């Protein structure tokens, strides 16, 4: 009994799904929810992606990385399609992605809807899990992160903002 060969579409999905995010390299674009689909359209392998933020400067780099990964997997005739709907939110992050963020010292986003002023929803420290943390700055190294510090273990850390 022979194992069925993976289809072109499946091979393309595997290659695209394994592409790391350029700004959060511990996550793949599939785990991050940026990769929306891989289809065969008019002899093209069409990869559909969605931006996290409207102005995300990484989208061009991600598109190039996907094309390179597909070519390295021996897949030619590729094209990238950008879609906006349904809009990306942090709800698209898989549980595995959240666990990976925490393991890498980045507090994962909580539940959406906490947009109140001077928001004091606790963000647990990714190192010591204490809730005794405070926000230092609304924006950090990338648009998707804010900077926090833990008053228990005294370590500063990044928080992947709820969006």
């Amino acid at each position: 009994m022979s194992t069925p060969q993976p289809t072109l579409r499946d091979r393309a999905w595997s290659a695209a799904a394994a592409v790391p995010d350029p700004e959060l390299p511990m996550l793949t674009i599939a785990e991050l929810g940026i990769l929306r689909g891989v289809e065969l359209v008019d002899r093209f392998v069409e990869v559909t992606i969605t931006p996290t933020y409207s102005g995300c400067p990484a989208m061009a780099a991600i598109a190039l990385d996907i094309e390179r990964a597909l070519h390295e997997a021996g897949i030619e005739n590729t094209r990238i399609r950008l879609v906006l709907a349904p809009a990306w939110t942090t709800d698209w992050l898989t549980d595995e992605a959240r666990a990976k963020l925490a393991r890498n010292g980045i507090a994962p986003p909580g539940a959406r809807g906490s947009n109140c002023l001077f928001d004091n929803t606790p963000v647990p420290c990714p190192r010591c899990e204490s809730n005794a943390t405070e926000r230092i700055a609304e924006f950090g190294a990338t648009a998707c992160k804010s900077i926090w510090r833990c008053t228990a273990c005294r370590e500063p850390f990044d928080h992947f903002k709820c969006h």
Partner: protein
Amino acid sequence: MATTSIAVVDDRLFAAVLARADDALILGHRLSEWCGHAPMLEEDLALANIALDLIGQARLLYEYAATIENAGHTEDDYAYRRDPHQFRNILLVEQPNGDFAHTIIRQYLYSAFAHAFWQAMTSSADAALAAIAAKSVPESAYHLRHAAEWTIRLGDGTEESHRRAQDALDALFPYTGEMFAIPETETDLIVGGILADPATIRPAWTASLDRILAEAGLAKPQSTWMQSGGRRGRHSEHLGHLLAEMQILPRSYPGAIW
């Protein structure tokens, strides 16, 4: 050699989309002027990140405008190859940064409107606009939170910060009328459910102002006289200077890539 300006089609939906793109681009550019100059590093990052979001929203809107116009123009053509009178942004967003209080109050007045506007636009009859709106809502939510928190800190801070915030509010408030005015060319789009009716947005904007200004200890200006003209291409002198700086490179070196 200088690149010539482009002419754009006369179409109502196209003009409405272009106007919203211009709002986002011009405000985004203004905020980017703080890059490297903000009062502290955290605010430098914050203002640059908000600028990036706004320019991102502008790009989505320009791309959609290009598909409506179908004249082979790109987002760069709209941004770099139109003259001041061809821009349709409201006058508020082109006002100079001034001091930090002016920047924050301008940002707050706009964000309180933009958040309510994009929320209403998620149910637009135009699927492309509804998708751009859905993308913009969460971004405008934290733009609003950032500006509102700073409005409260400045208004309720020191005597100096309070005075500066009140001066900024008094100076910029007359530019808020344009957000709710309906150009004659947009009435059909509102009736058709493509554009949100500003009358339905005003209550949320007013409620936000009443709450935030009260908490900040700032007095809402009583004057009802409002500036207008941006949506018709009649701008303050500030836009020409802004565009000169923004457009100099692509106009001087057509097709330059970096």
